[in-house]
């Protein structure tokens, strides 16, 4: 699914930097996202995701560096370039006083490549009547309406910024089903920003992790997950000084047993633990959720209780 006819990158930045006064929001970011598939972008609040999209869509100037979207310079996007990009954000902001029919008619006039079949297919997942005012729709229905409008645009790139935030379980499921299985998605590259790892695990072909305005990972989710391992070690008395533990992401001592989450450590880590006096050492796999969260919270790791 989701193969686009265009080779190359849908998003490309080189040395992209954005400063707000003293604060650096984007820090010399080199990012290249290939066309096709679903790419999830995760990062803590303030990682620079929103700033990045505002720059890419041409709403905000960069301090320095280059940003390209669908091969075009973000600073010089024409209306016909914008037609190729669908954007759905968490607010699902639409004209509340208009009816669903009126908003749809307006969008249909605005987009020459309007795909009525795609609109009908997607909106069919939701109980939305044409005569309803947008303000009368539930949050989930508004999300579905928004997605239907975006896909009817026939976008080559669909950017979803926390699209399921605040939706109930049923509405979330309907949204994911459309995203994963709708015929309207054919040929569309998806950028999916979310904090919800449960969804990321279901949808993402590729996992992009941003931290403090910089790229920290770009790989299939399972490749990233396999970089993180959980070690359980029975070390009598004190464990090693956390500063000496290679690749440490998180350390805990539970019932006198030491638990370490580490990055990029192979079997040699067992030797390290044995050298620290460990009697019994076990290596466990971790969930994607835990791998990502420990990676992102590394900066805030608490010191290990001795």
């Amino acid at each position, binding site marked *: 699914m989701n193969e686009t006819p265009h080779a190359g990158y849908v998003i490309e930045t080189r040395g992209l930097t954005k400063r707000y006064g003293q604060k650096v929001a984007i820090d010399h970011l080199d990012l290249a996202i290939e066309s096709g598939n679903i790419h999830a972008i995760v990062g803590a609040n303030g990682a620079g995701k929103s700033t990045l999209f505002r720059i890419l869509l041409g709403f905000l100037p960069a301090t320095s560096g280059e940003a390209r979207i669908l091969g075009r310079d973000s600073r010089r996007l024409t209306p016909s370039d914008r037609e190729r990009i669908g954007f759905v954000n968490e607010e699902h902001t639409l004209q509340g006083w208009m009816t669903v029919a009126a908003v749809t008619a307006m969008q249909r006039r605005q987009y020459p490549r309007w795909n009525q079949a795609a609109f009908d297919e997607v909106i069919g997942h939701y109980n939305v009547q044409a005569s309803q005012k947008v303000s009368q729709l539930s949050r989930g229905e508004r999300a579905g309406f928004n997605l239907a409008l975006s896909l009817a645009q026939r976008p080559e790139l669909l950017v979803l910024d926390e699209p399921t935030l605040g939706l109930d379980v049923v509405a979330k499921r309907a949204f*994911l089903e459309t995203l*994963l299985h709708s015929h309207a998605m054919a040929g569309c590259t998806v950028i999916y920003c979310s904090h919800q790892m*449960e969804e990321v*695990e*279901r*949808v993402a*072909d590729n996992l992009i992790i941003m931290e403090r305005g910089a790229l920290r990972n770009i790989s299939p*989710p399972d490749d990233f997950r396999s970089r993180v391992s959980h070690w359980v070690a029975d070390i009598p008395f004190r464990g090693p000084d956390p500063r000496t533990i290679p690749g440490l992401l998180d350390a805990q001592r539970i019932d006198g047993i030491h638990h370490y989450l580490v990055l990029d450590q192979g079997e040699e880590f067992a030797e390290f633990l044995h050298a620290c006096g460990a009697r019994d050492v076990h290596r466990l*796999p971790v*969930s994607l959720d835990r791998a990502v969260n420990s990676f992102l919270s590394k900066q805030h790791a608490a010191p290990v209780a001795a």
Partner: protein
Amino acid sequence: MARTRALPIQIATGDPRPIGKQIVDAVRMRIATGELEPGAQLPSVRGLAQQLTINPNTVAKAYAELTAEGWLESRQGLGLYVAPPRQRLSAAERDRRMDEAIQAFVHEVVALDYPPDRAIARLDKALGVLAKKSA
């Protein structure tokens, strides 16, 4: 033509096993227990992805792994089917597992204090069912 068999499996997110691995394990288990018989057709990639609300590429990768291991076979233009059980294990691995099975059986029989000749007679009868099944 064989009809597609339902594949009543579940996946869990937040599990240490990747979703693709969970699918591989579940399908192997169903074949090994005989719930999925040789010749049964599996759901399409799109169908299973819809059933589980996951990315179809994840299902495609799991199916590719099962096919490479000899659990499934692809029939041109028709889909994926459970493969006949022969080519899955090497001769050495088969011998090793057979030794294991015999050891386990012998240990149980010892614990039961059951006369060997009667144990062999019972075993012979039990294996007769297998012989019929593979004939």
